């Protein structure tokens, strides 16, 4: 009997049991419960739960704050993927040369990633304050007062300010990934290009950029999920305001559940967020599989 078990390897499940417990209790169970709760009208504590079918989802798609949130996440995604990729790529090209102190430059550019987002949020909140912030003070002092705008308080601007801060925080990540990718491009390709008389611009667009496809792909996936996840900086800087203009899915869920006690509704929003995150994760898993085989 014992032999049979160990031959098929069933006994070995004991090694993944603790993992399975954490995974099931704290990730799978909440996900399933999210779907279930989303069909109810419920405040989260009273014993009374009203089954209302898909009504929460219908409310959600009619709710202009939800629409703003998902739109902001989408703008976030597009701008982050594009600019973080582009800036990261250019800086990586700079740092890929044999120049003195390049590891110091790399470390400085990577530094913001290790700083708590909460701290980053408050610091930029201070720097970008309309009246006393150093940024506006700087613009006023150099006689460009028209650039001293209300970065956080202007509802048309606030989400873009937050996107900029997020790009600032994570560019070092793209730089490091691109630098690693650049190491894998065979030198012969550049030599061949040089012989063919290709200039710098041509070499970059025709050789370097296409040779980094798997790095581009990784970054697109990771930055996409980062854009869907965003919470800390938004919460700390604007709490989704002014007038819900910088709301994202995460702050929308937070506000609806913990301030307004709309537990059923916020579960429905959570389900939407989960579906988006899982779709992106599926792309990521395919990537790992392809690279591994």
């Amino acid at each position, binding site marked *: 009997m014992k032999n049979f078990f160990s031959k098929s390897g069933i006994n070995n499940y004991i090694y993944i049991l603790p*993992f399975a417990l954490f995974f099931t209790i704290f990730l799978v169970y909440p996900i399933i419960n999210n779907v279930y709760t989303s069909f109810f009208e419920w405040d989260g504590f009273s014993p009374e739960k009203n089954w209302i079918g898909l009504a929460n989802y219908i409310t959600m798609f009619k709710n202009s704050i939800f629409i703003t949130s998902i739109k902001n996440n989408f703008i976030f995604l597009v701008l982050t993927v594009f600019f973080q990729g582009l800036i990261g790529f250019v800086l990586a090209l700079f740092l890929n040369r044999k120049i003195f102190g390049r590891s110091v430059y790399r*470390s400085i550019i990577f530094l913001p990633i290790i700083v708590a987002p909460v701290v980053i949020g408050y610091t930029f909140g201070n*720097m970008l304050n309309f009246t006393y912030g150093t940024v506006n003070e700087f613009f006023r002092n150099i006689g460009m007062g028209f650039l001293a705008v209300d970065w956080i308080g202007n509802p048309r601007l606030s989400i873009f300010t937050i996107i900029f801060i997020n790009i600032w925080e994570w560019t070092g990540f793209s730089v490091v990934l691109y630098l690693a990718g650049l190491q894998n491009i065979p030198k012969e390709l550049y030599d061949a290009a040089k012989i063919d008389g290709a200039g710098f611009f041509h070499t970059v667009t025709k050789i370097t950029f296409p040779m980094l496809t798997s790095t581009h792909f990784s970054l697109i996936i990771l930055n996409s999920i980062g854009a869907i996840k965003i919470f800390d900086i938004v919460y700390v800087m604007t709490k989704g305001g002014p007038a819900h203009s910088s709301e994202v899915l995460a702050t929308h869920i*937070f506000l609806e559940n913990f301030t307004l006690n709309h537990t059923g509704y916020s579960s429905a929003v*959570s389900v939407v967020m989960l579906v988006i995150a899982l779709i992106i994760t599926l792309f990521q898993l395919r990537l790992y599989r392809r690279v591994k085989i």
Partner: protein
Amino acid sequence: MAKLRIDSSRLRNRSNIKFHIILIIVSFLFLIPLITMVSISLGGGGFANYIKVFSDARIIRYFINSIIITIPTLILVLFISSLAAFAFSKLKMPGKNIIFYLFLSGLMLPIASIIVQLFLMIVRLKLVNNYLAVILPLTALILPFALLIIRNYMDDIPNDIVEASLIDGCKPFGVYRRIMLPLCLPAISAVTIFTFLFSWNEFLLALVFLRKRELYPITLLPRYFLTEHQFDIALVFTGFLGIVFPVIILYIFLQKYFIEGLTAGAIK
């Protein structure tokens, strides 16, 4: 010929200076917020702010709270993920691949998407205002990433080592503890750094589950200042330096591991 070489090297030097100027400006842009933090923290009282903040018993308490959250999370993540990685990499299990990819599906799960349900669960378990309310979900969220990193590393260790030890009468657990763990040190250290950073900087779980002021981790420090003191911005930013400073010191000495730990999941 020799002349030509000198010319080209001088040309390279000159263009390097141009690159240095650009890179110094870029570095400055990445450092400005940190410089701003330091300069605000010194406003008003100067270094006296530092003494005031870091001798405040409450704030010292917040540091200890952050450590109380970070250390158990670290131990749980390392033990559970390396054990599972060992089984997935070296042992026979029915349905191994399917289970592995199922576990990895948690890789990118946003905390916000399950926070409502976690809250309901934690309330039912009567764990509000208990550190476990942060430690347990945090561990679960980090585990898939840790599993991926350690398993990838273990896959590169030849199976022969494991098989030979098993034939020699070593139990699988013995192989894990005495052979695999020491060999996986680089992956373990990457996971350690990632987990440390994630737990130390964690905000949302603490915000939701730790409602008593004396339980706050250091990331909730601004809330203490906003409610308790008059809003003294210099003191708040001195506190921020307290969050960031330990991390930067570690970063300076363990830079390579930080960068590897944070990008490991993306590069493989």
